[in-house]
């Protein structure tokens, strides 16, 4: 609790400068950042950054930045409180920093201003951006080894480990909140239209959409607002077994990687959504508009959304709803393959006082424990990321009583991931997603055909990947 005042003020002040001065904070003094970060890479040697903190008498403060608010914030704060109550050497303070992208950009700005948090949450798409910037973080597997805490990649469930591990099968960050998209469906509306089970293929979904429309349910489908490119491009690719980018979706190279979204599967999927949109059967209102209300207020009968939103939907929907696996492309023999985790992992930032690192290790070990994982998964729609957590949940008969939570786990474990379905590891992927969102908006508004929009997105995306390769390559 007794965070030293000098420490608080320094962070507040730099934070203020970061938000006021447009380029002031972002430009920072890169040369000295590199130096101070480099000195702590892979070790926990002391820096003089905050001697004040070390000399304070109370518990050592650890800051964690996350994108958890609402139900998720409550669940995460519960874990933080439990950790703080369990010991007195460290005190963790979790701060909600906005959306995933905001946490990433705030972390970057703070790091450049020498005011990075101790631990930060970086979302799936930001993984390559930080992972390839070695020197900015202390790899978690090394941190655990230095603090004699047992930690192995094999402790984690396959999907979570394969998404985040390095080329040498190590985990630089702690996989934490992991979810995968599922299909939510309004049981009342489907029953009214005489549809007995949710569609398992996209062809079937289109047929069902026509039936629903003839029963007065105009909109049959909506997708995640902010992450439609995650549900309908990235996860669509792995679930049906299509490559998303060259070099095994970027896992085996940084230079020369190109997207493969200007291809038949993506073109036909998005033009199908475009056709449905023109009839009002599919609605998506841009990345900044949440689509949750469209499902919970009954506007759309089905919803492709992250399993993490299960609790939010439960709280909002006034009708019985079910959860089923995402539809597959009809006639695709490889489908369904597997979905991959979305969500985020926790990174330990370099440049902090050396006495904070053992605390970071302890806190992460606490989050990884079976009981924390079981609590987290059962109070949110996330899946447990460790095998021990999954076993504990099963032994508590959780999935038997919560079939809706089971679907995400089944999708992730459906088949052993192939090299092209283990995940997507592309630098500046958040930027690529912006480009894809523009293409999707153009397709759904009828401004461009899917083929034309994806061709543009492909060339813009490839330019972004080339920019990343040039900035990180050498």
């Amino acid at each position, binding site marked *: 609790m007794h965070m030293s005042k000098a420490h608080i003020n320094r962070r507040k002040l730099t934070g203020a400068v970061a938000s006021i001065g447009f*380029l002031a904070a972002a*430009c920072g003094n890169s040369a000295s950042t590199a130096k101070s*970060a480099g000195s702590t890479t892979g070790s926990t040697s002391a820096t003089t950054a905050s001697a004040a903190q070390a000399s304070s008498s109370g518990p050592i403060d650890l800051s964690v930045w996350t994108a958890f608010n609402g139900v998720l914030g409550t669940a995460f704060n519960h874990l933080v409180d439990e950790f703080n109550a369990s010991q007195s050497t460290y005190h963790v303070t979790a701060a909600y920093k906005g959306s995933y992208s905001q946490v990433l950009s705030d972390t970057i700005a703070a790091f450049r201003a020498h005011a990075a948090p101790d631990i930060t949450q970086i979302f799936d798409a930001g993984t390559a951006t930080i992972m390839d910037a070695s020197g900015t973080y202390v790899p978690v597997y090394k941190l655990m080894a230095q603090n004699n805490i047992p930690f192995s990649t094999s402790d984690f469930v396959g999907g979570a480990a394969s998404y985040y591990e390095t080329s040498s099968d190590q985990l630089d960050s702690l996989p934490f909140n992991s979810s995968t998209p599922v299909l939510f469906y309004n049981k009342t509306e489907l029953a009214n239209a005489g549809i007995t089970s949710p569609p398992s293929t996209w062809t079937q979904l289109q047929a069902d959409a026509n039936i629903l429309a003839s029963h007065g349910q105009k909109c049959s489908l909506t997708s995640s607002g902010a992450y439609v490119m995650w549900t309908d491009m990235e996860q669509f690719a792995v679930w049906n077994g299509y490559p998303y980018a060259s070099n095994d979706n970027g896992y085996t190279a940084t230079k020369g990687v190109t997207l493969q979204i200007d291809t038949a599967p993506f073109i036909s999927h998005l033009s199908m959504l475009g056709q449905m949109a023109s009839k009002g059967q599919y609605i998506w209102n841009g990345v900044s508009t949440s689509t949750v209300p469209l499902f919970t207020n009954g506007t759309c009968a089905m919803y492709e959304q992250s399993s993490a939103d299960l609790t939010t939907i439960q709280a909002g929907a006034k009708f019985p709803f079910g959860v089923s696996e995402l539809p597959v492309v009809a006639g695709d023999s490889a489908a369904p393959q597997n979905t991959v985790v979305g969500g985020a992992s926790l990174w330990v930032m370099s440049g902090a006082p050396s006495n904070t690192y053992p605390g970071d290790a302890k806190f992460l070990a606490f989050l990884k424990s079976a009981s924390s994982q079981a609590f987290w998964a059962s109070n949110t729609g996330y899946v447990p990321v460790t095998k021990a957590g999954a076993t504990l949940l099963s032994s508590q008969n959780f999935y038997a009583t919560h079939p809706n939570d089971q679907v995400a786990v089944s999708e992730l474990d459906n088949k052993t991931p192939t090299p092209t379905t283990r995940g997507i590891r592309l630098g500046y992927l958040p930027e690529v997603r912006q480009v894809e969102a523009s293409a999707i908006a153009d397709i759904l508004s009828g401004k461009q055909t899917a083929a034309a929009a994806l061709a543009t997105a492909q060339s813009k995306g490839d330019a972004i990947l080339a920019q990343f390769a040039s900035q990180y390559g050498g």
Partner: protein
Amino acid sequence: MARNAAKDRRRGAGAVYPHRVLPFAFMLPELAVVAVFFLWPSGQAVVESVRESNAFGLGSRFSGLANFRAALSGGYLQALEVTALFTIVTTVVSLALSLFIAVQVEQTGRFKSVYRTLFIWSYAVPGAVAGAIWLFLFEPRIGPAARLLGALGVNWNFALSGTQAFILISAMTIWQQTAYDFVFFSAGLQGIPLDVVEAATVDGAGAVRRFWRIVFPLLGPTTVFVVVMDVLAALFGSFAVIDVVSQGGPGGSTTTLVYALYRDGFQNGDVGLAGAETVLLFVIAGILLAVQFRVINRRVHYS
């Protein structure tokens, strides 16, 4: 007065301040603000514009004009186009609308001050708040204004239609900027000598002729000021509204130069590219203002 002051300066000691250093001490806070919030960041932007590094600022190295080439080959040209159209539309409409309203209000009798307050009101709303209110009104399918448009047969969805998003952002900016311009035109109209206008009336000039031949030319200095402020508002001040309502989308249709700069530098962490875009924006704004002052000043009479 001015001559005396100049003489004092030449004498060295100065009549007002007994010491040479003191005036500079008084200027120090202002100079410090300029240095910290303008000179230093601008200098950094220039330095970063010719360097390339990863998002966290590590591995920084000299990259020549690569960032400028990247800026001019990417979405920046579209942003330039959007900004040009946005600046012209918002400036012209705000100017015409505010002048018209100011003239009308000036002619009303009893409720003049009430009208004035009402028309100035919208400028008192901060950009982010205005954005939130308009977003609430025009939210596709949900907002009251959006439903009204829907009832009129307009397929309103600015989240997908670039044209609609551009119209919405322009309308909001005009809504705010008109109020601002109105303040200055109102003040300007009150400064116009009544005897000149009356003389013209006696000579048989009609209302329209009186306005264009007497009132408008006498408002010249005010108009120059208002145009400059409107252009600056369009170039730099539109950020909050865009960030709240459309985040530059859909498809870059509301990405102005400033918004592109924010997106590339802050969201995407490409500081080198953002630095190059900053330098380009500096140059563009500088040229624009220099041209405005030279061309327009020649036609304006300060009395």
